[in-house]
Structure formats: structure tokens, C-alpha cells
């Protein structure tokens, strides 16, 4: 009997306290299949948001034709980056929300602002349970002759701006968007700008692809383009011979 006790005591010594109280694996805080940047810009007569069509599995370009944009209502659109399965869960929640409104048939529909706030509550509630939806979302829309562009992150933080980006787009895209922004931009100019941003992202962000979708919200409603490829140019001096750049870095 004594022997038994001492042997189990030796065993226990081999465990660190962390191993004795092992946390369950929290898959939700380790995203598997992920989408990259989403960028958006307000224009004089609407809003443009865009995302590339890549869903990565780690560093593997796993799904190259995955749509990360969604039409929520006739006046509201959503773009999502981060964990793809969580994004699909968010799409499901929104579809149910919109269907409920549809069945009530009282002419009330969710505005872009209310969708933005709703997603903020959902993501905040989830992060408060230490089980976040691992996404950064862009909500864009055009309702009551007003453009709306807002972001929601995995903590439930919400804010609005004239130009917004998520993921690597914050680092590489936002400066370009801010530089290009004017209050009197047309939708077509806005599309041109987000295309340029995605071209730059494709050059530098290794979790991106040059195949994108662009969604626009105007008084005519929300349209999401078919995926299309961006023209790229690889014979820049800095690309051909990185050492030729003045700081001898690829930056």
C-alpha cells in the first residue's frame, strides 16, 4: 500500500500543474481556413467594398474561388475576413434575421447601420464567452440617400469611416485609400481605387490572390461582381533586382 502511494506521488511530481488542469483545445481561437483583407471606400453616390476570393489553409492557397462578399439586403452588403467557418455562421445568422423581417412583412428592413450594430453585438457577446467569432467584417450600404461603411472586429469593436480595410489591408491598403479619398468620388473611381489596393496587396501579402470581387451599394441597390483577375506587372526594377532599390530591401 505504501509503495502504491509513493509511486503515484512520483507520478504526480512529473506533471506540472498546467498539465494537471489541461485546458480543452479551443479550436475557435486557432483559425484554420482564413480569408484575407477586405477594403471599402465611400463614394459620393454609394459605397464600394471588395475582397479577394482566396480562403487559405494556413499558408496553403486552399480555396481559390471562395466568395467573401455577401448581399444582406437590397441596401446592405457584407465582406468578411478571418476564419471562414465563422464567417459562414455569421452569414447564417444574417439570413435568419432577414427571413424573420421578410415574414413579418411590415416593410421594416435592416439598415446597413443596424446590421453593423447587430454584428457588433454578436461578436462582442461571443468574445465575452471567450469563444470569439474569428472575423473582421466590413459592412457597407446605401440607405436613405446616405452611404454607410463600418467595421466590426473579433472583439466586437465597431466603428465607421470613409475608408476602411481589414487584415493586411490596414497596413498596406489604408494609406493608399486615404490618399485617394475625396468626398466626390464616383463609384467607378472607387472601384479603380480598391483594385489598385488589391494589386498592391497581391504583391506583398502572401495570403492573397489576384482574383477579386467588388460589391457596390448605390441607390440602385447592391450588386456583387463576378470574380475577376487583376492585371499584374512584375518587371518593376525593385521586383527584378531587389538590391537595386535604394535601401536594399524589398520594402
Amino acid at each position, binding site marked *: 500500500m505504501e509503495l502504491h502511494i509513493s509511486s503515484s506521488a512520483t507520478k504526480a511530481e512529473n506533471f506540472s500543474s498546467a498539465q494537471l488542469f489541461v485546458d480543452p483545445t479551443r479550436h475557435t481561437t486557432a483559425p484554420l481556413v482564413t480569408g484575407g483583407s477586405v477594403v471599402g471606400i465611400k463614394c459620393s453616390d454609394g459605397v464600394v467594398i471588395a475582397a479577394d476570393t482566396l480562403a487559405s489553409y494556413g499558408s496553403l492557397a486552399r480555396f481559390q474561388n471562395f466568395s467573401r462578399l455577401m448581399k444582406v439586403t437590397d441596401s446592405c452588403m457584407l465582406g468578411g475576413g478571418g476564419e471562414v467557418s465563422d464567417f459562414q455562421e455569421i452569414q447564417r445568422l444574417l*439570413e*435568419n434575421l432577414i*427571413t424573420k423581417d*421578410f415574414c413579418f412583412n411590415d416593410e421594416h428592413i435592416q439598415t446597413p447601420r443596424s446590421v453593423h450594430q447587430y454584428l457588433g453585438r454578436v461578436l462582442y457577446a461571443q468574445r465575452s464567452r471567450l469563444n470569439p467569432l474569428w472575423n473582421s467584417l466590413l459592412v457597407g450600404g446605401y440607405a436613405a440617400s446616405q452611404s454607410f461603411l463600418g467595421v466590426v472586429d473579433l472583439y466586437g469593436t465597431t466603428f465607421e469611416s470613409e475608408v476602411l480595410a481589414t487584415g493586411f489591408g490596414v497596413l498596406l491598403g489604408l494609406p493608399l485609400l486615404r490618399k485617394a479619398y475625396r468626398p466626390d468620388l464616383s463609384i467607378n473611381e472607387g472601384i479603380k481605387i480598391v483594385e489598385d489596393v488589391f494589386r498592391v496587396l497581391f504583391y506583398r501579402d502572401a495570403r492573397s490572390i489576384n482574383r477579386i470581387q467588388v460589391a457596390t451599394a448605390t441607390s440602385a441597390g447592391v450588386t456583387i461582381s463576378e470574380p475577376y483577375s487583376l492585371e499584374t506587372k512584375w518587371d518593376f526594377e525593385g521586383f527584378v533586382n531587389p538590391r537595386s532599390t535604394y535601401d536594399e530591401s524589398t520594402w
Partner: protein
Amino acid sequence: MASIGTGYDLSATTFSPDGRVFQVEYAQKAADSSGLTIGVCCKDGVVLAVEKILLSKMLLKESGRRVHLIDQHAILAVAGMGPDGRQLATRARQECEQYRNIFRTPMPGHLLAERIAGYVHVHSLYWHVRPFGCTVMIGTWELKQGPSLYMIDPSGSFYRYYGCAAGKGKQGAKTGLEKLDFRQLSCDDALLELAKLINAAHDESKDKPYEMEMIWIKSDTGKASLVPPYLIETVRQRAEQLAREEEMAD
């Protein structure tokens, strides 16, 4: 009914010696004592129409609706007790949502009808619940299947129809429906036919005034919607006018 008073009609859990469940039959009676409800499945969609009897002159228009949107692709109309019908509509919405959550695709009509029929049926099996006092029609539209129409009665039995009627005057309406060729009929044309049938079933001198309610799914959009009030008003006036002309001709 000779069997009344024999004690076999007090519970839905007891058969009478001649094999009937009276409580369910009474529920069917409740369903057939309300205004006429008609459904037609046309070549390009489904239309459901209800003759909603107005019990008071003070009722606000469009209140106490008997036609319900269930999902983007599904509609429901009630003959019989309104609250019972609303309960079934709520249930149908839940079924559609659950199906969408699991399969990420709209619920097929035959499954929706089967689930609702099952729900109605279990309410005819236990002493502690009352059977539904309504007959409901469910219309759906699917990408591959096209339009389909089902009718569920208080016993929980359900069938798929080209055209069906329930409520007061259903016999006359059924006869009228049998004269129509549903493969040729479009939803737009069906509106007038339905208005004519409801108008014919309604006896203005005897019955209380009524409001006509219509709901449809057309294949051009595949999306359910209430028929706009001005369309209903147009076909109703046209139906009344045709009825008057016929009377003059006689």
C-alpha cells in the same frame, strides 16, 4: 349525428365503435365554418386566397390576416380558427429555419407539408391537447420542382393538389376549380378566377361583409409576397361586375 351523446366524442384519444374520432371531426367542422379559402397551383406559381369575414365594422383593414409568409419561398393560408392557424404558421417558420440551418438550402415543400401535418396529427392523439381547429394550405416554389400546393386538415392528413378549397362553400369552389386548366393558367389570370369563386360563395344578403386576402409565389422571382391590395381590389370589383352582368342576363 346519431352517435352524439354516446360518450365517444369527449376525447380525441378514443375511437367510437364504428371507427371514428369525433373530436377530430368536430375540429374539421370548425375549420369548415369559417370563410372560404382556396389555393391553386398554376403553371408559374401558387396563389392562395381567403374570404376573411369581417365580424365588426370597426375592424382595421388588413388586421387579423389569414395569409402568412413562411419563408422566402413558402406561404400559408388558414381556413378555420385564426389563432390555431397562426400557431401553425409560426411552427412552419421554425421548420424552415431549422432546415435552412442544417442544409443551407430552402426547405422542400413536401417536407414542410409533412412536418406540419405531423405536428397537426400529434394534436389528435392525446387527451391533454385539443386538435387544431383549422385547415391550412401551404404553397412553395422550388428551383427544380417549381410550384407545389398542399392542404393539411385537422386530422393531420395532407395531400398535394392542383387546386383545393376549404371553409364555408368549399363544395361550390371545388366544382369551380375542376373546370379550370391549371397548366394553362398563370398566377395573374388565377387572381380573377379566385375572386370569382369567392364572390360566388358569398351571399351578400345573408353573410357578413368580407375582405379578400391573397398571397402568392411566382416563378419569375421565386419569392413569396402578399398580392398588392390594388390588384386584389381590381379583381374583386371585376368579379362582382361579372356576377352582376350574369344576373342581368338571366
